[in-house]
């Protein structure tokens, strides 16, 4: 039986689209990998873009430490005046957003906005 024997790390791929940076996340987001996402977000926002896209479709796992980051990021978007779009994840990573009902208050989209 094939199974996941070790925790999968987080991969962050950055694309600089015309509309702004887009971060594609793969792997697992938890207290071990959350600081790396924070760094990537800070770097992506350093130039003051009008939009930030975070694509969660290939994220295999996310817990409340990741949820916390997206809640804080949504507040930051409001304060700093950039548009945030979170591309809705698949069920394993969507669970934490649904159970906490944070899904209803975060700017989810089905596809990355076209640039």
């Amino acid at each position, binding site marked *: 039986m094939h*199974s996941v024997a070790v*925790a999968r790390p987080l991969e962050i791929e950055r694309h600089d689209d015309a509309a702004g940076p887009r971060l594609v996340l793969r792997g697992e987001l938890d207290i071990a990998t959350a600081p790396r996402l924070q760094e990537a977000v800070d770097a992506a926002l350093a130039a003051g873009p009008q939009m930030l896209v975070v694509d969660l479709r290939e994220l295999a796992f996310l*817990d409340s430490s990741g949820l916390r980051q997206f*809640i804080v990021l949504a507040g930051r978007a409001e304060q700093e005046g950039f548009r945030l779009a979170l591309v809705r994840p698949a069920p394993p990573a969507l669970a934490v957003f649904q159970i906490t009902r944070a899904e209803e208050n975060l700017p989810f989209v089905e596809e990355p906005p076209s640039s």
Partner: protein
Amino acid sequence: MELARDVNAPGLARAAVFEQLLTAGVDGELGQTAMLLVSEVVSNAVRHSQGPADAAIAMEATITAGGLRVAVTDAGEGFTPRPRDPEQPGAGYGLYLLERSASSWGVESDGGTTVWFELDLGRSIPSRAAGSGRG
């Protein structure tokens, strides 16, 4: 199993329980909920333990016909579970997730602190349709 009290502990704990669930033929939504709760309970022990930094975290996961039971013990002196604080965005979601998704859970202090939860087999992630969600 014993886990070093560092940020890698939740991932290692999830992988171990995932293996156990696979062996028991459990996957799907129950497996997803289990991964989430294991991650929350172990992260909680990593972050909030007041024990010595080199004290390990002990996790015991058992699967019976009734469901999954996970108990995580650290050397800390315990804490009082508090509900989510609306003043702190995103804080306290770990316990909130236990409250919402576990069949039962609790905290016991006896030298160390044990946070445990049980998840019924066949129980799954509550859907948004439950309660007064969007129609």
